[in-house]
């Protein structure tokens, strides 16, 4: 990345009293990207967003916006705008007044013609033309969401911050808004920073996902990277569904390790960090990388316990002796009749590169619990 990052965190730590919400984060968010800060509640993602917005000051380190250190700069002098959780629209103003609120704060003052013109454009951009005189309480949740977007974007911020913007919408509307947000971001070309605890939302909308846990950045990468090559056990488990099989390292061969599972089966797995012989590990296997077939072949044998038919796919809960229950996902092709029934024995296979071995968890223990208090505090 040659350009100056829109947002940069340099060794940023945020403490509330004895509680550390964010510890020593270094992060550069590239320009014109759609970035999601993803993590469980209390991981420090909202604190990070609020530090960019200026509502919190870092206890240590620097937050830079377009290369400028923001220390001591109040929210009203920062070139960023935020879409708040539950929108925080002004109930005493109508839609247009809400949208032009930021324009009216500009110094030197903008002419009232320019204000109403830009507010009108913003309304049209979020497909609410003609709604200018409505009161906020007359709008549906989805419409309020758009007003909040327009109110932030009308000020032409360098970066748009979105704090769980879709959490209050129903599923159908959420999917629509995801597409619309993506389109908006491409159209306007500014950086969007989205905070979410919903991994599906993060994966589907953003160019980069920044997975956070326990006040630290665990992994920054493109959605497919995060999903396919999780940096650690936490990411593997948090992003998408996965099966975790515990075992011990039985042998090492180059990039691969041989892991002896609880039932004695030895499988070859890729590793992300160095592992030593005898070390306790968890092997992550995505449900869709498991393939089911009639008994006889495959690395593992099991019995189908439940089948969840989803139309294009079917999910199976499979009981494997000595290992436990595994989740498998298989495409369903019409007419092929490849559905297994509960009670049926099956063989489970997987592609050679699919299993990933991680050392047993150490970083999602106490640290994380501390943090959950932290995000409630402010």
């Amino acid at each position, binding site marked *: 990345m040659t350009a100056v990052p829109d947002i940069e965190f340099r060794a940023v730590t945020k403490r509330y009293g004895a509680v550390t919400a964010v510890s020593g984060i270094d992060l550069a968010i590239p320009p014109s990207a759609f970035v999601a800060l993803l993590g469980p509640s209390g991981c420090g993602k909202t604190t990070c967003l609020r530090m960019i917005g200026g*509502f919190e000051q870092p206890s240590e380190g620097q937050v830079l916006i377009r290369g400028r250190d923001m220390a001591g700069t109040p929210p*009203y*002098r920062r070139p960023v705008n935020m879409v708040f*959780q539950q929108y925080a629209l002004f*109930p*005493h103003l109508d839609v247009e007044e809400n949208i032009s*609120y930021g324009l009216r704060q*500009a110094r030197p003052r903008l002419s009232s013609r320019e204000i109403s013109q830009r507010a009108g454009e913003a309304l049209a951009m979020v497909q609410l033309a003609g709604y200018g005189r409505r*009161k906020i309480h007359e709008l549906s949740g989805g419409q309020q969401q758009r007003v909040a977007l327009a*109110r932030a974007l009308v000020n032409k911020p360098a970066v748009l911050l979105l704090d769980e913007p879709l959490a209050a919408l129903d599923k159908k509307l959420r999917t629509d808004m995801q597409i619309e947000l993506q389109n908006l971001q491409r159209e306007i070309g500014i950086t969007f920073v989205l905070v979410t605890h919903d991994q599906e939302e993060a994966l589907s909308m953003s160019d980069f996902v920044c997975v956070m846990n326990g006040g630290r950045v665990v992994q920054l990468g493109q959605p497919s990277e995060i999903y396919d090559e999780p940096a650690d056990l936490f990411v593997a488990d948090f992003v998408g569904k996965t099966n975790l099989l515990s075992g011990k390292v039985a042998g090492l061969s180059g990039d691969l390790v041989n892991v002896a599972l609880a039932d004695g089966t030895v499988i070859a797995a890729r590793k992300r960090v160095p592992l030593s012989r005898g070390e306790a590990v968890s092997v992550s296997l995505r449900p869709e990388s498991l393939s089911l077939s009639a008994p006889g072949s495959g690395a593992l044998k099991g019995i189908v316990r439940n089948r969840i038919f989803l139309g294009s796919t079917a999910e199976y809960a499979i009981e494997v002796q000595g290992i436990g229950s595994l989740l498998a996902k298989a495409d369903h092709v019409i007419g092929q009749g490849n559905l297994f029934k509960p009670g049926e024995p099956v063989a489970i296979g997987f592609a050679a590169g699919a299993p990933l071995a991680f050392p047993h968890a150490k970083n999602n223990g106490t640290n994380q619990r501390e943090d959950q208090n932290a995000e409630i505090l402010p």
Partner: protein
Amino acid sequence: MSETGYKPKPDNATGGLSSAGSQPAFPMRGSLFRKNLVTTLLLAPAALWLVVFLVLPFIAIAIFSVGERAPEGGYQAALTFAQYANLPARATAFWNTMVLAPIGALACLLVAYPVAYYLALRAPQRWRLILLAMIVIPFWTSLLMRTYAWMYILGGRGIPALLAYVGIEDLRLINTPGAVLLGIVYGYLPLMILPIYVSLERLDRRLLEASADLGATPLSTFLGVTLRLSLPGVMTGFSLVMILLLGEYLIPTLLGGGKVFFIGNALVDLFLQSRNWPFGSAIAITLVLVSVVVLIVANRISTRLSGARRVDLI
């Protein structure tokens, strides 16, 4: 994908499938009757109380006000508006009330707003209740006692005596409009603080952050958001204090020494001393009308300014 294209939900009447959870169109007569009976019984005591102690006396006063004073005092039936025509005779009382009530309410507001603001938005959470209690507790003592205390403080042996030590002689505090105003502010302060506190407390803090985020300085955030959204509380407090002040009797008597005469004092005088009931009634009716107008105006203003659909005054 606009949301304007929502289709209305299919009507219950046309679909035979959806009747399960819906209400029957005609509830049974018995249950309706019983419901009404319960409602009536619940409302009866309050209604009776209001009729006996508010509506009937009010009608009586209205009738008195178009009557004449009997030669020996009291009421004598007649139909005349002479009493209303005579209102200018108590112009001073009206003037004092109409000037001091709004000024008193305004002075109260100016003192109360910063206190309420501090309590709701700045005071540490754990101190809030204690501070609120400190504001309310003096109210548990009778206003009479507290006003007597002020009489002493402002009287010859109070502050003026202290000031005399430092060379400021002959300062008159008691029995002045200033003393009445001070008494008013002191006496009604909690009534002003509490509604403002409640409306500020209810204020969504994220609106303040949103305002700052949109580039508003703390001052314009205060004027454009905090103050605007606390106006219902301000109007409640203001009209509450204002209306109570319109009928105020005690404070002007004790701290104004008969020199600052309020409508309340005029009423006491007319009903109890000179026994001119019809004239007193005319003044009382006028006072009620003024109060109603104040209430309506206050309600209008706060509804318009806050953007709320409906504002509860009390």
